[in-house]
């Protein structure tokens, strides 16, 4: 048996491999479900209907998709530059922190302008959280993976400190919670879904255009491919790294604003709830293409929403639902291997080539 690198896989082959992966995931998970004592068909049907079955469920799935899409776009911009930003969590929290400050503690802004200002401040706060590792990487060659990861913990602790300390709502006696946002600081709704959905769709278009058509986008690709070539072409590497991370962190920050002002209605640790890490997976699966982020995030949202639905509908324990999600993810990521490599079986006899 040999493992051989594929020389350019055709689109048809890629689609086939992905389909086989999905079928494999369904079968393997089905066996697992049977062992748990459930009917796999029933579980799958419930998962789908739990995510898409009614207007409310569909809305919930879309709400789950929004933070994934925007965070993925932020991560994508950084990954395109081969800057391994795994600090989405921290950037989301800092974005939410910035928005919360405006929503709760600044009262001189005219009410209609509060939300736009929250977005701007949230973007900048997330962006600054992205610029910190970028600055150290650009000037001292610091490892961005470690730095972005560590900054997550600082952001987490900072929010916890605010929640139990200075920002604790005094009206809630004995319960450590930051006050809810006033109504004018909550995201307006369109068709029952907060405007975060529209924002996420617009951002997909903007980022796709930005990476493909603008000079900055071109620079990001060149730096990502070869720093020495970028330098040779006269590009200012430090500036590019820092501005790109402002954008990357800023986009994650916008997720924070939307989650705080649209879903949680206040600043809590739930604002990020793992999106910063999940988005790394969705970004990777999208193959660093902005439009595909949308599709992958939607499928992922179905998985998350359907998974939590079967917990309550069929009394499947949460751990089992997580295993299901994990297996499906494993097959999806595993198919990536077969897109890049093929396995060849052959015996030592004449002309037994199997392609």
């Amino acid at each position, binding site marked *: 048996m040999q493992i051989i690198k594929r020389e350019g896989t055709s689109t048809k082959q890629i689609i086939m491999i992905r389909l086989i992966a999905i079928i494999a995931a369904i079968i393997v998970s089905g066996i697992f479900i049977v062992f748990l004592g459930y009917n796999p068909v029933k579980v799958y049907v419930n998962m789908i209907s739990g995510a898409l079955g009614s207007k409310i469920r569909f809305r919930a799935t879309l709400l789950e998709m929004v933070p994934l899409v925007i965070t993925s776009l932020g991560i994508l911009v950084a990954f395109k530059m081969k800057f391994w930003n795994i600090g989405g969590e921290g950037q989301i929290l800092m974005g939410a922190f910035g928005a919360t400050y405006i929503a709760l503690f600044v009262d001189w802004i005219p009410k209609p302008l509060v939300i736009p200002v929250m977005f701007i401040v949230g973007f900048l706060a997330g962006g600054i959280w992205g610029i910190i590792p970028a600055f150290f990487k650009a000037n001292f060659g610091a490892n961005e993976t470690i730095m972005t990861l560590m900054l997550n913990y600082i952001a987490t602790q900072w929010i916890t400190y605010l929640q139990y300390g200075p920002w604790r709502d005094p009206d809630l006696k004995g319960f450590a919670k930051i006050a809810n946002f006033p109504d004018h600081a909550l995201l307006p709704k369109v068709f029952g879904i907060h405007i975060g959905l529209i924002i996420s769709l617009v951002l997909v278009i903007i980022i796709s255009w930005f990476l493909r058509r603008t*000079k900055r986008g071109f620079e990001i690709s060149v730096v990502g491919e070869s720093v020495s070539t970028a330098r*040779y*072409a*006269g590009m200012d590497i430090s500036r590019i790294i820092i501005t790109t991370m402002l954008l990357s962190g800023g986009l994650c920050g916008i997720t924070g604003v939307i989650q705080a002002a649209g879903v949680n209605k206040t600043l809590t640790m739930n604002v990020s709830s793992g999106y910063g890490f999940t988005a790394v997976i969705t970004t990777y699966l999208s193959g660093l293409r902005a439009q595909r982020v949308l599709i992958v995030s939607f499928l992922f949202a179905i998985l998350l929403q359907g998974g939590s639905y079967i917990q309550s509908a069929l009394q499947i324990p949460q751990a089992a639902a997580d295993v299901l999600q994990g297996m499906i993810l494993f097959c999806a990521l595993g198919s990536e291997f077969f897109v890049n490599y093929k396995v060849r079986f052959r015996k*030592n006899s004449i002309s037994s*080539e199997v392609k």
Partner: protein
Amino acid sequence: MNKTYVEMKNICKTFGVIRANRNVNFSVYEGEIHGLLGENGAGKSTLVNMLSGIYTPDSGSIFIHGEQVNIHSPKHAIELGIGMIHQHFKLIDVLTAAENVLLGHSQSVFISNKSRIKSIQNVMEKYGMEIDLNKRIMDMSVSEKQTVEILKVLYRGSKILILDEPTAVLTPQEIDKLFTVLKNLAETGCAIIIITHKLNEIMSVTDRVTVLRQGETVSTLETRKTNIRELTELMVGKPVNLSIERIHSRKGDLLLSVKGLTALGEHNVPVLDNVTFDLYEGEILGVAGVAGSGQKELCETIAGLYPVEKGDIYFKGENIVGFSPREIIKRGVSMSFIPEDRLGMGLVPSMNMIDNMLLKDYVNQPGITVNRKPAKEKAERVSKRLEIQAPSIYTAIRKLSGGNIQKVLLGREIDANPHLLITAYPVRGLDIGASYNIYDLLKEQKQKGVGILYIGEDLDVLIELCDRIMVLCDGKVTGITGSESITKEGLGLMMAGETLSSIKKGDVVCKS
């Protein structure tokens, strides 16, 4: 008569519509160094890849030690005693030479142990090779790495060695060393196949040579009964004029004046030491020197990519030291440096020709978006002018052959209409036709009044192509001389550190 180690009969191989090999016949004897000669795309690599198990022939038969075999995998080839030394080394940087040799061969958990190292040393002794087995690959020079590659193959007991363009990345001295090793190997009974398109190497090291053209064997000749002219004709298919006609153009104004340029490398050792020279418009100034004498740093300091410790660089009277690379590009300085791996600097491998053309130009476009239309025109123009062979201008550069990649880079730099063109190793690894094509392009630029700084390896070419030659040794200029008044040997001495005045006294190596 010696035993036949390898025999390939009527080998055919097609890739899609391309017939890479058509009825190729080829045999190698014990103790022989056999040259495979041919232009790019003549089918040399395809042929040896079938020997090393990477491809299988569509038809035809292969005999190893007289026995018909069907080589189905590289592993099988190794078992048959066929070892391939690729142009791009397949070594692991962080491991030592010994660990690399043992890698994949050793069955035990621990990679190194005394008895194995002893057996490697035995192999080295047997073939008269020298290398520090405890040195890490990343600390090695190119030629040392190659030695490790050869050792790796020998340690596995290969008696048939295939070397794919082994000299493309070596200096003249390193080539000599390699050839000594190869001759030793042949004497002890190995059969060696060497792929190259450098004729003088064929002449100096091989016993027999097989010429391929457009996938077919043209002829197999005994090296001592042939000459360079005949081989060239067989290879190209028509008589070729091998001399470079020097164009005498009017010497223009002073373009570049470098004064006391000093730059530091690792551990603050000077890599450029008080370098002073002038370059005029319409002149080709050649730079000769052993690899690593400061050529790279010289190019990069002028292009603003390497920090200058001391000294001035006047371009058209303006001191450009401390300017950003972009400011220097704007003033009309173009640099194309072909590194050993060909892709290191100047091109983005995963992007297509169009985006690579944009690399320096995009910044001058108005607005915040990039306009790919002019770049597309440029890609078409360059590709037509330099006869670049590519499936299309939308193909990723990485997928082109080495020669075509170089043409893309040089073509882009020339198309920018520079005032000063710095070009390092532009013909590295190119075949004859392509090389002369590049020389013609450079001469054309010279006639237009462009000042050219040409960093080259082939001393014959330097003497024929350049107006003046500057020799670098350990970052110091050992002499600048008119190319008509110096010989190859004279340049060689200067490359080794002798100064021009001292060799002039000897008067043996200078023409009148």
